[in-house]
């Protein structure tokens, strides 16, 4: 699938990864434009239902990123998020949903380069995995 351009949604926290992605921009580092960011106050705020909604709406991949452990602006939101993801990932895998489509990461406000790298690598991986046709077929009945 050479000219497949994946759609990737990034759910990021305001304090670390959003700022880190700002730094990527300020440093003029380049990355793949297939990724768009939705800002949350904290990874703790990110409801797993939103990930399902993103896939249901046609996302081929998802990035969820926040502050490194112990660096959470709210001290522990990311720890709660981490537990939620451990369970959610296990469940997705159990249901036969390819968890390689959801990339979790910690990107701090200082890690502009890491953000660019993360986006590029994730886009590349999703491109290799191809469109998330299996999930998108579920939309068959035209509800979204």
């Amino acid at each position, binding site marked *: 699938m050479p000219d497949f*351009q994946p*759609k990737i*949604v990034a759910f990021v926290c305001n*304090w*670390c990864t*959003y*700022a880190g*992605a*700002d730094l*990527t*921009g*300020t440093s*003029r*580092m*380049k*990355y*793949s*434009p*297939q990724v*768009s*960011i*939705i*800002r*949350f*106050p*904290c990874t*703790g*705020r*990110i*409801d*797993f239902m*939103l990930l399902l*909604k*993103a896939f249901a*709406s*046609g*996302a081929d991949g998802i990035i969820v990123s926040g*502050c490194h452990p*112990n*660096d*959470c*602006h*709210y*001290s*522990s*939101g990311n720890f*709660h*998020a981490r537990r*939620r993801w451990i369970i959610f990932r296990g469940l997705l895998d159990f249901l036969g949903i390819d968890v390689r489509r959801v990339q979790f990461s910690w990107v*701090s*406000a*200082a890690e502009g380069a890491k953000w*660019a790298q993360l986006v590029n690598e994730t886009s590349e991986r999703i491109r290799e995995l191809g469109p998330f046709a299996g999930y998108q077929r579920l939309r068959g009945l035209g509800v*979204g």
Partner: protein
Amino acid sequence: MARIGVFICHCGENISATVDVKQVAAAAARIPGVAHSVEYKYMCSDPGQQLVKDAIREKGLTGVVVAACSPRMHEPTFRRACAETGLNPFLCEMANIREHCSWVHEKGDATTEKAIDIVRTLVAKVKKNKALQPIQVPVTKVALVIGGGIAGIQASLDIANAGHRVILVEREPSIGGHMSQLSETFPTLDCSQCILTPRMVEVAQHPNITLYSYAELESLDGFIGNFKARIRRKARSLDETLCTGCGLCTQKCPTRKIPGEFDAGLGLRPAIYVPFPQAVPNKPVIDREHCTYYRTGKCRLCEKICPTQAIRFDQLDEIVEVEVGAVVVATGFDIKHGDFFPEYGYGKYPDVIDGLQFERLASASGPTLGEIRRPSDGKVPETVVFVACAGSRDPAKGIEYCSKICCMYTAKHAMLYRHKVHGGKPYVFYMDIRAGGKMYEEFVRRAMEEDGVQYVRGRISRVFERDGKLVVKGADTLLGARPMEIEADLVVLATAAVAQPGAEELAQKLHVSYDAHRFFSEAHPKLRPVETNTAGIFLAGACQAPKDIPESVAQASGAAAKVAALFSRSELVREPLIAVVDRQPPPVYSSCVGCFLCQSACPYQAIEKEEIRGRDGQLIKTVARVNPGLCQGCGTCVAFCRTKSIDIQGFSHEQVHAEVLALLNRGERDA
């Protein structure tokens, strides 16, 4: 029906160079609910803002999306502009098409497409925004200053002189920090202690300053204007109110051979000690690790001879709780120690020392009373090699940055050596000389021209010992990188300035961010250099990055000014981006079922139990309630709530749900 205005900024060429802004404006105009869509060269300029304000008035806009830079930059600007027209400021959102789009992608359709996606997403969000009212919170006008080095001292004095109470916490038994260890200071060569100690005394005597020395921050909770700090006062084993500082105990203590911290390990101190004669407070502390009594249960000599019976062997650490409105972090730096340079024999050869140790050798209050004598045999060194950039600018050693102070202090060391040892031969190995500062370049020139310090441009490869000499293998890159060997008597490494041990833990206690090298991060590298990302917590001195004394003092005064500005008001206005629990009319009252999973998830203990009672006082149900004063708006509770009864203002279910759908092009059906 929503009437949204979309304002697309070119940011000069920052956006328009890679994003077709006209196309974005045209696409935005077609989004249902968008009543107005324009692009302009500088939206943040006065005419740009006027454009927004006029449109709000003329088109009766119910929401505004400014597609420009990061909300971290201009969100306040445009929200204020909206407020001036009477539009609730929280009905304005920024679509970040600069940092997250134009700057990170090449020019092309995909980039413009993405900019349109971002705009559509934020339009979808703003349609679900609600008018919000700011929250007023009171301010406790007491400042907590952490760290009693020159930065902490300066900040404390400035805040105290502005009329506010200060609590100064210092980890060591005395305030003074690294500056008190220095011999002379560049570029004036005035005595460090002579200029520092008056300030230390002023701290001790200031009516507005409470000093907790030998104490550490245990925890910090709360938020700007309303922090609660717990401070651990470590047991000095002494009743400070009784101790007169006579010094008898320190003179008589039988355990005397402990390498002293103040002398950087070069001098010895007793087990009960005052770090240095001018210490503030001038009260000793018992080092329980080395004290004979604590080790063997016998001795108690100090107790017997103390004229005021001030010794308290059974003293325990004490936790003090204080309420403060602002925090200044001034915990300073450390230098790299230990087995860090095996090729230079640092840590192996006693005569390979670091810069701080040289300060003590050169200091009149030091172990050699200011005579330069090498540690191994007390000989006056005839040849001294000073090595700059020892670990700084050295990615292989994990430190990429310049430590900033070494060029200057190395020049100072070489000069002091020449002044004290006539005929001594000082060599300085350097990579570059960074002497940007008032009278700094002149100072380095003086070292070369007047004091005959020989500068060799190159980094040394190795130091090894041979026949009582230290053989330094270097090369002069100005002479064809010709290798050379210098037989030195003393080698002084300007080891890298690094963050304090424990900096990471402190940052975590304070919820401030820190960089890869564990220096605390300022809110903005240029424009907010003394603030942290956590409101109400400010930075001063070398805990943020290596700094010399004038810079530390300047930043400390800056932080103090910020604190004073904060304390100039009795109430603060906070953004109302906080969680709320759903309330409904009887008989439902709330969709909350009171499972209180949110309560254990909340990092701020902001969730309370509210009992809903009938008119007869009968308990109908117990539901969650968010204390708006405590909630910081992380939203962790929101994601836990199965009944979706908690929502967070500004990032509500409806808002983020709409964003996800809109981003993926499917928002329109929902609109």
